[in-house]
């Protein structure tokens, strides 16, 4: 038996000029840059399309020129990008300013997932023709539709939603005025280092090197992404050397791989939290003193040390240390005495019973059970309802729940706005408003003062002033007692063979495969 446990499998080798990536493709629903928001889609699209600017994987706060050689932020909020000359699409056409303008207008006009980023800044299908425009043959102008700090826009369009599409190729495949939507869902028209050969949903994505890439052809001739929903299979293939990178492994398998001399594990922190959410539609949770007490009842260390080593970092407040707006001393603390005293003072010396929605997959189910045990010590009984995505998030989006566990994510990692918005921003608390993308609205947490501060902070350009305003948001939210308790900051782990060089995980999910190399 012991021998069986320590054996090392026979090492096979993947070809030197192919990168083989394993992932669970269940969330890969579209390869249209303007109609997706998943972690998995970003990995593919980052390598098929180019954006005007990008961020440094080693420091997501640093914005780098890409298809734009430079950009200029005017005092009125206008941003002007200077387009690089000489870049080519996979079709052989040159990347022109017309392609850039059309791509950005398309993002808004489609009215799908990509549009949500822009509508937040006041852009609509009606005004984009006027606001997104070309100046001469090499300048793209983004006029403001309302006052918004340009930095927020820059961070957002550095991700896949800011992809520049080959207008002519897409329009050739247009059907009934859909701006190529049907076709682009599983085809590509980009200028990135790889061109999409084929995507079979829940099976495989094949990408071939684009030899005419302006930034220098990729080292790998081909990238193959395999659908490997079973973490154990990913692990086995990695150990065997049949897989170069595995990006969705279970905690147990990551631990199992950690001691393998051929494999390196990397954990990339993301902007978002595993959180506990309480609905203020529930009369008990509506009381700030109850929410305050509950924050003392959760054993954060227990969860983070025992369950989240591979999936999370300890979180105490919405803005982590190092990001502007961080306030020392504000946040969660586990203290059972304070928890019990708080509940007693609020009139619940014996606790109460609530339903608690969670996903049935790891680590959600495990965290929920730990929280259930933790709260039980204070007499609070959680009736856990574990289900799939829509059974959990559906009721939350419709405000029909009492409490639950979820995970938030943001497109803007390097700016406090990205960390705060969903958790505290709620401009209209009516059911009819249906601001179902915002956690604050889902939980009916309505503090107009905080929303006003958020609007103000997002609209100015003075960074020092913004940081102060965000710190103010944190303090005011704290006073009002939040409805969303961050438990762990999300971390996206992946494992790779050590012979794979220059594979750098990216907090914005825009992992670049063109720089990846392999040793023998």
């Amino acid at each position: 038996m012991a021998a069986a446990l320590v054996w090392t499998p026979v090492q096979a080798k993947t070809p030197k000029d192919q990168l083989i990536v394993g992932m669970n493709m269940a969330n890969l629903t579209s390869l249209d840059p303007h109609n997706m928001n998943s972690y998995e889609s970003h990995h593919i699209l980052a390598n098929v399309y180019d954006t005007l600017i990008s961020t440094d994987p080693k420091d997501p706060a640093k914005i780098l020129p890409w298809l734009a050689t430079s950009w200029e932020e005017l005092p009125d909020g206008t941003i002007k990008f200077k387009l690089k000359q000489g870049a080519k699409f996979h079709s052989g056409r040159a990347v022109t300013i017309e392609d850039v303008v059309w791509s950005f207008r398309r993002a808004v006009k489609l009215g799908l997932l990509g549009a949500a980023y822009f509508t937040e800044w006041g852009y609509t299908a009606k005004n984009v023709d006027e606001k997104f425009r070309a100046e001469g043959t090499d300048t793209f102008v983004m006029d403001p539709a309302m006052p918004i700090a340009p930095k927020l826009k820059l961070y957002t369009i550095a991700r896949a939603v800011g992809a520049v599409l080959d207008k002519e190729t897409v329009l050739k495949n247009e059907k009934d005025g859909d701006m190529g939507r049907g076709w682009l869902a599983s085809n590509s028209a980009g200028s990135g280092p790889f061109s999409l050969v084929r995507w079979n949903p829940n099976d495989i994505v094949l990408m071939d090197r684009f030899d005419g890439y302006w930034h220098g052809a990729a080292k790998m001739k081909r990238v193959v992404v395999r659908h490997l929903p079973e973490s154990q299979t990913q692990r086995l293939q990695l150990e065997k050397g049949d897989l170069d990178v595995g990006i969705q492994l279970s905690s147990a398998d990551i631990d199992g791989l950690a001691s393998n001399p051929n494999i390196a594990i990397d954990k990339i922190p993301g902007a978002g939290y595993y959180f506990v959410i309480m609905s203020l539609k529930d009369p008990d949770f509506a009381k700030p003193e109850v929410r305050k007490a509950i924050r003392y009842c959760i054993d954060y260390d227990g969860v983070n040390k025992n369950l989240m080593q591979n999936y999370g970092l300890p979180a105490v407040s919405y803005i982590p240390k190092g990001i502007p707006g961080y306030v020392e001393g504000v946040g969660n603390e586990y203290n059972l005495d304070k928890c019990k005293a708080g509940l007693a003072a609020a009139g619940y010396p014996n606790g109460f019973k609530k339903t608690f929605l969670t996903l049935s997959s790891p680590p959600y189910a495990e965290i929920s059970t730990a929280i259930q045990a933790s709260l039980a010590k204070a007499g609070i009984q959680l009736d856990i309802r574990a289900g799939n995505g829509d059974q959990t998030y559906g009721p939350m989006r419709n405000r029909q729940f009492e409490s639950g566990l979820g995970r938030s994510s943001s497109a803007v990692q390097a700016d406090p706005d990205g960390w705060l918005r969903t958790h505290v921003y709620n401009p209209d608390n009516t059911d009819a408003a249906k601001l179902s993308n915002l956690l604050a609205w889902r939980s009916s947490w309505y503090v107009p003062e905080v929303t006003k501060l958020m609007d103000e902070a997002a609209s100015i350009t003075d960074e020092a002033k913004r940081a102060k305003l965000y710190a103010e948001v944190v303090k005011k939210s704290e006073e009002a007692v939040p409805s969303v308790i961050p438990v762990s900051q999300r971390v996206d782990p992946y494992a790779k063979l050590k012979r794979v060089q220059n594979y750098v995980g990216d907090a914005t999910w825009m992992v670049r495969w063109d720089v990846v190399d392999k040793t023998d």
Partner: protein
Amino acid sequence: MAVDAPAGTARAPSPTLLPWRRLRRGAGTVGSALVTLFLLVLLTFVIGRLLPVDPVLAVVGADADNATYMKVKAELGLDKPILEQFWIFLTQLAHGNFGKTLLTGRPVVEDIGRVLPATIELATVTIVLGAGIGVPLGVFAAVNRGRLADHVVRILSLMGHSTPIFWLGMVGLIIFYAKLDWVGGSGRVELFYVDMVPNVTGLLLVDSLLAGDMDVFWSAFRHIVLPASVLAYSSIAYISRMTRSFMLEQLSQEYVVAARAKGAPRSRVIWGHAFKNIRVQVVTIVALSYGGLLEGAVLTETVFGWPGFGQYLTSALVIGDMNVVVACTLIIGCLFIGLNLLSDMLYRLLDPRTR
């Protein structure tokens, strides 16, 4: 089952009426198949739509804003009443259009054309192994009833019935793939062979032979051996148990005793007399097993990363993608009807009494 002429008719039908009767009988068979399929579609669709799953959320994700959510919902026609949705679906179906998958917006037919051959290939190799080993094993156990051999077969088949298939698959992978390197890992073929041979039948083993590419054939063979063996193990268990009990029933019949008393050789008694009489039943259970395999083996497909029908159908079912679910159900329905007809034909071939 095919309908035969009512027994006990007073006189033989006049020869001029025969073709007419045959036609009517054929039409009756087709008609009942169509009614079955319609009811199948109706039930699947209504149950699917009544399930508390929200396909829209699966498409747009949990963080989508409401405008996107409503737009996608309207585009998918999910804001209409169920019966209207069903009517639209039926009219499309009548035009031979299975619609598009909700999740990826691709034509369902195209997807099925990709996943079904993968499953047919796996199921066929499995049933060849399952029947090829299971039937002789069952006969062997029956002949040696109560002896050691019988007990060994019984224990083996009991284990085959009760071992979780995903566990067997995982252990198989660890031993035969990771440790011994006898078989390929997950998927249908080594990744660098993907797309190497032209897609003619969709069955890689066949396509690679047609293309004369032995490297691809060998890789496909290495990849199919383990999942097919794992699946075949439970098939063998079922088929051998059933064959054994059919055989036991025959072996206790008087004609067997008579044949033995007459001094017929043992093998002739077993294969020529007893087995001959259970062929129809064996065909039935083999056909049923094959049908079950064609529905797709979800767990095996998941463990082995086999891009087959079972995985496709299950992932659609989980998110309520009814276009896919109904199309798959129809295919399964047709497969079973087809297999039934096929075994009916085999009955007639094997058993003169049914002619």
